[in-house]
């Protein structure tokens, strides 16, 4: 059974492209509570909130290996091709990627922003 400390969030992950936020509980390549799975990049990981199983993890995002931006794994923000690339970087360097990736990219949309613009406040 995972202890409370292991599951406590280390901080809040925020995608620098779409603004998605979620608390993460681990950063690295070996998610806690499992020996059989390793991650191929330094990832921000949380416990899978949709699974009752305590050792299910969910990778939230990682740094773009070109520009270093912290991006989520959502298809509108980044892709993985042996490394993590944010979509702006992929678009800038399309030629470096195989045709399959290029075709795939055409299908993707711009990220929907999750940031909300604040409204004027009455009490100030």
């Amino acid at each position, binding site marked *: 059974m995972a202890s409370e400390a292991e599951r406590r969030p280390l901080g809040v992950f925020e995608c620098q492209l779409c603004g998605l936020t979620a608390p993460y509980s681990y950063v690295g390549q070996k998610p806690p509570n499992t020996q059989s799975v390793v991650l191929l990049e330094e990832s921000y990981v949380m416990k899978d909130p949709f699974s009752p199983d305590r050792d299910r993890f*969910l990778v939230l995002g990682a740094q773009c290996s070109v520009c270093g931006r912290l991006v989520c794994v959502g298809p509108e923000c980044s892709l993985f091709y042996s490394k993590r690339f944010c979509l702006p970087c992929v678009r800038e360097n399309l030629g470096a990627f195989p045709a399959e990736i290029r075709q795939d990219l055409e299908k993707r949309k711009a990220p929907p922003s999750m940031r909300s613009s604040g409204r004027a406040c009455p*009490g100030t």
Partner: protein
Amino acid sequence: MAAPRAREARGHRDHRRVPSEEEALEKWDWDRAETRRLFEDAFFRDEDYIRQGSEDCHKFWAFFERLQRFQSLQTSRKEEKDPRHPKHRIPALADLPHTYDPRYRINLSVLGPDMRDTGRGSRLPPKRVSEFRRALLHYLDFGQKQAFGRLAKLQRERAALPIAQYGDCILQTLKQHQVVVVAGDTGCGKSTQVPQYLLAAGFSHVACTQPRRIACISLAKRVGFESLSQYGSQVGYQIRFESTRSAATKIVFLTVGLLLRQIQREPSLPQYKVLIVDEVHERQLHSDFLLGVLQRLLPTRPDLKVVLMSATINIALFSSYFGNAPVVQVPGRLFPITVIYQPQEAEQTASKSEKLDPRPFLRVLEAIDNKYAAEERGDLLVFLSGMAEIGAVLEAAQTYASRTQRWVVLPLHSALSVADQDKVFDVAPPGVRKCILSTNIAETSVTIEGIRFVVDSGKVKEMSYDPQAKLQRLQEFWISQASAEQRKGRAGRTGPGVCYRLYAESDYDAFAPYPVPEIRRVALDALVLQMKSMSVGDPRTFPFIEPPPPASLETAIQYLRDQGALDASEALTPIGCLLAQLPVDVVIGKMLILGSMFSLAEPVLTIAAALSVQSPFTRSAQSSLECAAARRPLESDQGDPFTLFNVFNAWVQVKAERSRNSRKWCRRRGVEEHRLYEMANLRRQFKELLEDHGLLAGAQEATPGDSYSRLQQRLERRALHQLKRQHEEGAGRRRKVLRLQEEADDGSSDEDRAGPAARRADDSVDIQDVKFKLRHNLEQLQAAASSAQALTREQLLLLKLVLARGLYPQLAVPDPFNSGRKDSDQIFHTQAKQGAVLHPTSVFASSPEVLHTEEPPATGAGGSRDDKDKMSSKHQLLAFVSLLETNKLYLVNCVRVPALQSLLLFSRSLDTNGDCSRLVADGWLELQLVDSEGAVRLLGAALRLRARWESALDRQLSHQAWQQQRQRRQRLEEDEEEAAPISRTEVAALSRELLQFMATKVPCSLRRLTGLEAQNLYVGPQTVTATPSLPGLFGSSTLSPHPTKGGYSVTDFLTYNCLSSDTDLYSDCLRTFWTCPRCDLHLPLTPLERVAHESACAAGLDGGPGAEEAAPEQPQKPSALQRPYRCDACHRDFLFTPTEALRHRRQHM
């Protein structure tokens, strides 16, 4: 926990013959169970990400099969790319693999068994291992994508909520102000989001109150889920019987009532830093009171922040109540809604029956069918005033639905079983719409998605309260404009909608702007009691946001005084203190206290719980003969509480016998099992309360002696816990597709009809049963149920006495002509109301003859007074739990009690004539006894019993109060005198005598006084002519003239000789010479004086006239007893004490 199974499987494998590699490669078959098991053994071990036999394991193989098919379709098009690709200048891009492989798109890797453990998996062909591992990688990647997709969707939805733009604003405002009002309509997301904004901003110790328990649970789950700590413990809830609170909890959802109780214990509420009071616009009684308490509390807790959340109704009221608190107003998110006014024409006046005319509703169904294509989705929600109206429309709509095959019609109201309520969330098959017929429960409490059409009848049935008659009345009202808007809004949550209003626009304009707050329409007993126990001062001057009607408050205070909860100065009595802590009706609380004194706690606990929940008898079973027959053995002709008592006990026995299915047992008898679970919960809570207050000895550990059965018990509990966890972790209830009417109409759900084999695995677990067994000590319950069956006749009678005393003064007298009437026409009268009838669920409705006196009055005689006033020793009254007015006035939950004895024991006011042969109880029931001597003797016995019962109860309560105080002070003041508890033998003697008293057979007549008679009941204050001296009868109490009734006050309830009646005038002439057999006294005495002498003489007192002189037993100031006395014989005026007057009069004889 799964270890033994896995080990077994592995042991199995070791003895298997492993096929040689070539053999395996040639006829490799992934579908073979054995092949799969080999891989599962290697890759899906206990410590692996996927475990053998888990749901995930099954999902993987399904995924694997799909992947295999997909890959066989794709021809291997592995043409090599240009190998001389120029190196990229950016290092990260320089070493990308140029030959594309989907594998490179996956950001994780699975360690195979060969890499970790040389022994394992080595016998598997490497080619197959890599095939398998590749599939596994894709499966895990797929799972990641799916979960992330859900997360992103959730966040997007949260961000898109109207309130999302105001989150910062709310936090900012809360920083600067102590109170903030957040106003937003349903759907703006305030209830789920504001708690999360507070959490995210680092707040902890947050309490969020909800008016309903169910909302506490669902919001805690939702907020826990959305804040992605679903299985963590930051978010919890606390309701009457359940709590998920822990040390890690930062925000707790709880009911208003529970928060008030916490304030009661710790008035400064130190455990919270932020309070969110949700749904304040509903103006529930407790919520209004909480606002008042907070308004007073806030100045003393400047660090406490309060967020009031409201629909956009009357916001200024809340803001100004808290010193013009800032308001953050959030617009709702509603799609445009077309309003169509369809006022009902005068047509239904033609059929002016009680039943609602369903035609206007059917016309809307038709209109929708004509105007909108069946493929266009969108369900219909119809708001009706009550259950009867729902029934009327349901019948007609189902006929229409079966003809058109385009509708599934579903009722929705609070009396439905949970399972039936849940059906409204199911989806209709394609081309079919749901038509939900609902009370105003769907206005704010229940949100159903996919509603496009709303029909608003404009009516609501609400309990209104008549403080004069202390009568709850279910009445139909026009709704308010605010409710009408709320109803309309339900059509525009998922898209543009249509709202049909079955009234005119001018009607709408005439509606009240807001609904009447609860405080103005319900009984305030419980509120006043709570206010008293919280020491908030005089309820009359409490600064309510809107004050209750003064008459209601006065009635409540008077009622509590009548019930003995408040004393004359309106302070809480010991019994009142206790009642304030029991979250039940005062009447029920009294029963609990009385019952515990007579060692009847166990049965009274059950009955009190049974009377505090809704009737468990389902409506549909009312008409079913089978149900009625199955239920009959459980019925008790003593009254409905005893029937409920039997039902509960029988159910517990069924639960205890493992082999039987309690769900089925309930269904067969037309019993809603959910209510029985509620009873069990409530019963346990009552029991704990009684134990806490020293009224019931703490539960003895009922653990079986030997270690084997202890182990058994432990294992059993563990298994139950596991079942519960599995259920909670499972997806919960999935939405089902509804069936068309023919099949779904017979009241049973799919699950009932399907055999056990057809059920899904998680359905076969009766989770309610599991929770029940975890929460309750079934053995203790069963013991209580078994001992209930072994109750002696005496105990049962005593139990009835306890109920009757608790229920007093809720009494009804049968109409004298009932025995000549049909079963269904039996009528009863209460003090304030005439012509009440029995509720159809009552046992007396089917067997009213048990209420009749033996000799039915001659029907032909036309009801002369003689007939009605038939002398009988079998007159009975009904003590009832509540009076409910719908289309008729119903007595709910009745017990029959012997009239004469009950009135003598319980009446708050008892008036007599000169020889006590005529008694009037509480100014409305007249009893005439033939034998005046017997009457006096009975009265004397009643007086003595009442005094003893009262003192026993007082001692019991003061002992309990003393114990509690001692606990609190922790024996700091040891010298304080201990209040001795009442001894068992004393209680036994008292119960014996009470039973003897109840068993006396005294013929009498029983009659409800007419209004005129009641008005001219008393002789009134007058110059005193004679004062009886009756030491033996009335104890040592001194008689003083009653200031208004006339006659003499003997005790606080008994007034002697105050009834105006012809016979009084001659009472003095009834003297006859009589010789006392004991002391040979020979005097002309009235019957009363005779009995008084007898009982004094028998008690060993020297009761002879003149004896008082020698033994002045009344050392009180004699002057106070002197009254002007004019002697009719010597025509002189004196100032005499009662004894002096008697002595003087005797001179003339």
